[in-house]
């Protein structure tokens, strides 16, 4: 039954040739999940392990460098990028649980480190997979929904959509859940207004954007929204909490694990 979404997901990400299922993977936890939202990291590990993979989490990893890079401080970002590359020495996939960090690691490292050893950098970037992309296109997971019927919305980050070209894979995973109905909110492809330091440097524009995003999500009859990017979720959930709304976003790793494990929080 899930053949169709899977097939279309593969077609949409056909810019890339996917490797066969590996025995081991690295997890790039991202600094946001590490500091603020660790449960999603643990849930991602559990989901990957259930697929029979061994998940390695190098303790030396830190931030991908995006905050400095996006602020124009490329030299500072570059040393951080070189440091990350050293933390993942084995030739196995690196799964990233946030789309924008994935975009940074996969695409911007190539630009930023073009004067370094090209082959080493290119090989590293080639090993980067966004979490939903990896589940869909490399593992080709088959999910068994154990949860009660419910409606959810999906927020795909701009990075997943436009940099990683993987906005279709999150959808494909949710569509595998038999009891979950995916509802589409208005302006679904529009940015939530996070943009890292943009949210602080231009707080009023960013604020107007997130207020609209919240309005469109609340206008659906979904019970929650799901996303694979903590940057957006920190922004959207923060605005929801500020407005004293009970509606929240949940990381897709936690959501998939919960649905397929059968516990309904």
């Amino acid at each position, binding site marked *: 039954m899930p053949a169709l979404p899977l097939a279309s997901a593969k077609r949409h990400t056909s810019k890339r040739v996917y490797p066969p299922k590996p025995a081991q993977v690295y997890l790039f*936890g991202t*600094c946001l*999940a*590490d*500091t*603020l*939202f*660790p*449960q999603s*990291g*643990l849930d991602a*590990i559990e989901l990957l392990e259930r697929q029979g993979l061994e998940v390695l*989490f190098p*303790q*030396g990893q*830190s*931030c991908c*460098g995006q*905050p*400095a890079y*996006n*602020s*124009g*401080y490329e030299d*500072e*970002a570059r*040393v*951080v990028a070189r*440091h990350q590359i050293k933390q993942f020495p084995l030739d196995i996939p690196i799964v990233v649980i946030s789309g924008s960090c994935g975009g940074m690691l996969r695409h911007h490292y190539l*630009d930023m480190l073009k004067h370094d050893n090209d082959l080493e950098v290119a090989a590293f970037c080639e090993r980067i997979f966004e979490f939903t992309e990896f589940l869909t296109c490399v593992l080709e997971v088959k999910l068994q929904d154990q949860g009660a019927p419910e409606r959810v919305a999906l927020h795909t980050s*701009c990075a997943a959509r*436009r*940099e990683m070209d993987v906005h279709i894979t999150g959808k494909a995973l949710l569509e595998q859940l038999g009891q979950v109905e995916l509802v589409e909110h208005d302006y679904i*492809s*529009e*940015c939530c*207004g*996070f*943009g*890292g*330091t*943009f*949210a*602080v*440097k*231009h*707080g*009023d*524009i*960013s*604020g*107007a*954007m*997130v*207020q*609209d995003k919240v309005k469109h999500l609340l206008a659906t009859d979904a019970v929650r929204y799901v996303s694979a990017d903590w940057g957006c979720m*920190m922004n959207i959930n*923060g605005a929801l*909490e*500020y407005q004293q709304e009970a509606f929240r976003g949940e990381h897709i790793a936690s959501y998939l694990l919960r649905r397929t494990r059968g516990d309904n929080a």
Partner: protein
Amino acid sequence: MNTRANTIATDGSKYEASARQFRGNVARDLANPQLRENFRGAMDYLTDKRRQAFPSEDELETLRRKCQLIKQRCLLKLPELLEQLESKLEQNGIQVHWAETTAEANTIIAELIQRKNGTKVVKGKSMVSEETALNDHLQAQGIECLETDMGEYIVQMAGEHPSHIIMPAIHQNKSQVADLFAHNIPGFDYTTDVDTLIRTGRQALRDKFCHADVGVTGVNFAVAETGTLCLVENEGNGRMVSTVPEMHIAITGIEKVVELLDDVPPLLSLLTRSATGQIISTYFNMITHPRREGEKDGPKEVHLVLLDNGRSQAFADEELRQTLQCIRCGACMNHCPVYTRIGGHAYGTVYPGPIGKIVSPHMLGLEATKDLPTASSLCGACGEVCPVKIPIPKILLRLRKESVKAKGEPLVVKGQGCNRKPLEAGIWKLWSRLNTSPVIYAIAMWLASRGRWLTPAKAGAWTRVRTLPKPARRPLRELVKQREQRREGQ
């Protein structure tokens, strides 16, 4: 007597001051619900029209790639093509003038008009003439200068500037336009019917075309191979302006030159579809020479003013040069979540939206425009729709880099380094140390999690509309370690 000329610059430099007001403008326009509604509605309409004009994703991609390559080829040969264009145009009887600055362009145009003893000018739509503030300059010289594009006509009547490069009056709705006409057009029978409003405007303009001494227009493509000036428009006013008066002066930026006549059809096809969703514009004018002997109409003199105004600075850098690929369709602003919310005037620049953010620093210097490159979430919507594939987000990043560059680096962009603050630079240095030494990082994580109760309730702009999350009780790295240890113990 016009005393404005003494207080306000009558060339492009006047935008330096308004660009500096960006933050204030943003606060003002975000707080205007009518304005925000007008922009949202108009942008939804335009993005929808564009979507319908490109039914095939594959065709769109092929055409974008093709047009990107055309513009890149033309830019690669820019100096030669400009020379070829000049000699072809002059062979055809069109006189070419070069202007490095906006003030020079205005002086050239004013002198041409005065040589003809002209006092009445009608204008077709031209963003480059907005760039030079030509209307202000000519009015200061006592020359009447009337905009004839309906949107520009409205904007001029309101004493404003265009808020969009294709739809200059998009910030106004029909009842606002009706109010404006009621105040300014004698005998106007109040209505908000759009067709009647347009008809009223057209009637008021009709007479002006016939009595004007000079017509001024922009140029969409200047073809070097044949010496042809191409003008894309929908209202026929461009044709009137370029054919009825005795003299036609066209003004454009140096990047508008294309090598071959064959380059035009694909570019035109992408331009109109990206801009308004039209398969082709209502009018497409190709101007190759003045009125020839025996011909009954057409201007007796045709001039082209080619303006640099910072473009050669962008041209000198391989990455920034891509800025000049722009064919001014406006799709980037139509799809921009920032533009949709703050509108075109907030930018304070002639060109608003994503393209405005990357082109204005070359025209006005990075110092006056330093808030523009950072006013983007880098969502990538602009780059995704750009018909000539300008990597706008990447160029925004590049300009951010230029604006925090340390002193003493070779000059690339005028005003580079203007946004470098010692405190911010220091913070990023520290951040970089933290993220490259696992021991310090682990200690920082330990401190953040144990000191989570110290998280402030207020954190600047962030908490004006959001709450600030607290660090988790234990960071992911510790939880993973515990998990691994538990497993080993089992």
